[in-house]
């Protein structure tokens, strides 16, 4: 029961409210997106732990980290402070937009992989699905902010490119870890970006 309530709560944050009379101000949209990013941050460690546990050791070892593993189809979240600070509104938001679009598509792929690798783990599959929904929610919220600020909204692209269907089980396990890890990094980045917007466009 509490799970259903949580999903309901989540949905109110995910969907930019349809016209309730007067359209939302940029500040309101920014606050909504910021709150979503915070709630995503809260769920991050649970998702990562659940995922790593299900893959077995070494993934499930305490403190597991493999920064050497990367996916070139995911944009990196790290950026020099100087560059980050100098981004204009449009560029700042479109980077977040691009990242969460890629993450949404990759999370779908990871969900499919795990359905195959861990079919008897419904909790993991549900958490992956929720993460994908939250990422989609972030996309919607960011698009809403761009519209409210009069910024151009780039079209959705296929970021996965050619999916190598022959990926082995181990490669798929690594892939899931990288995606969830980067999802965490981009959530932290989104919190910082949106905090900046909150300060710049106070209500």
């Amino acid at each position: 029961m509490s799970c259903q309530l949580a999903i309901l709560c989540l949905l109110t944050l995910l969907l930019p409210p349809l016209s309730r009379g007067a359209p939302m101000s940029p500040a309101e949209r920014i606050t909504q997106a910021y709150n979503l990013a915070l709630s995503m941050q809260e769920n991050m460690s649970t998702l990562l732990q659940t995922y790593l546990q299900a893959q077995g050791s070494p993934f499930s070892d305490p403190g597991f980290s493999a920064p050497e593993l990367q996916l070139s189809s995911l944009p990196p979240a790290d950026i020099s402070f100087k560059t980050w600070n100098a981004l204009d509104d449009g560029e700042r938001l479109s980077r977040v937009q691009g990242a969460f679009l890629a993450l949404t598509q990759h999370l779908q792929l990871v969900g499919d992989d795990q359905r195959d690798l861990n079919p008897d783990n419904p909790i993991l599959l549900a958490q992956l699905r929720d993460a994908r929904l939250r990422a989609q929610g972030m996309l919607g919220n960011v698009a809403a902010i761009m519209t409210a600020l009069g910024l151009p909204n780039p079209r959705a692209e296929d970021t996965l490119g050619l999916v190598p269907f022959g990926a082995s089980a181990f490669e798929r396990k690594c892939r899931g870890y990288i995606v969830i890890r980067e999802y965490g990094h981009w959530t932290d980045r989104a919190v910082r970006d949106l905090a900046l917007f909150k300060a710049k466009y106070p209500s």
Partner: protein
Amino acid sequence: MPRAPGSSRPHARGSPGPPPNPRGGRRRCCPYCCSASSGRRKRDQEPVLAQYTAVISPQDPTLLIGSSLQATCSVHGDTPGATAEGLYWTLNGRRLPPELSRMLNASTLALALANLNGSRQQSGDNLVCHARDGSILAGSCLYVGLPPEKPFNISCWSKNMKDLTCRWTPGAHGETFLHTNYSLKYKLRWYGQDNTCEEYHTVGPHSCHIPKDLALFTPYEIWVEATNRLGSARSDVLTLDILDVVTTDPPPDVHVSRVGGLEDQLSVRWVSPPALKDFLFQAKYQIRYRVEDSVDWKVVDDVSNQTSCRLAGLKPGTVYFVQVRCNPFGIYGSKKAGIWSEWSHPTAASTPRSERPGPGGGACEPRGSEPSSGPVRRELKQFLGWLKKHAYCSNLSFRLYDQWRAWMQKSHKTRNQHRTRGSCPRAEGARREVLPDKL
């Protein structure tokens, strides 16, 4: 692991020459508070250093428990530094003893494993080839287990002839160490094709529910197929007619009430399950009851085609929980018993409090004592009533009174024994104690 441009295959970055981390070993940081890069990459630019990757063969092998495995980790390099020297293996996070590996050539490290144990997790055991600094170069998932054994003990039941639920036990050992898929199949014995049940885990992990399109008065063949990476097994075929395995809902509207002031009886009433009211059958019922703080149920059997029953021999002033269940016996004129329904929700009621002191209670009179030391009014009334009927002499004597009390206690005991076995008197009228003509 090869890296293709724009691909979503994970690749590893390592360094030729000196290890990237001067401290040695794998750098550990919390998963998402450090940056993802290995620290060598210039921000927002393509990596300056070349990298090498590796591949393990075989990929995702499936093996029987106890078998051996030969594996290789081959390094591909862009730079001359890419070598198998210094690489090592781990299996499920544990470093493998160096005597199990050897270098086949400059770029290939071999591994020989023997007598493999069953896989630790369904997603496969992780066999990993590491660079000297501990970073992951390549991996392969091992699936080690057993083929499934024949499932057995299939039992099925139909709720109100509308559906069929079946349960089975997986093969003798159950643990195959591999994900095993169970599929319940069924077909009409004399006609038609195989059907597969779709709704699994309805009443436990090894169960399936067929919600509709079931024929009556004709036998079905039912079996379970178990499959995993190593093989498959099929249970024996169970043949049944839906009408032979019918169960129904528990009786609704179970009411328990007192029987006037009788302190050792309760009356139970219920309604026959409505779902089967249109079908000719004689229902059988069972009642069970227990004292509030006991776990022992007493069962009243053989309640045929009634919708009420009187429980007797109960303790006065006690709360009882009562449940009723139904068996759709003889459905459509069949002589067979059906399957008992679930018990109804427990209904509670309490017997009236006793006005006479209980046996062994503090207020009990010892034998032969003066009756004036404490008989209750009611008891005396009963005695006088009895006397009026049965005494030959009008001389009241305390001896006579004691004898009567002794007789009362004795008949109470036998009464309770009979009632404990469980019987449901059909007579609706109040039961009176029949006292013997002679003492």
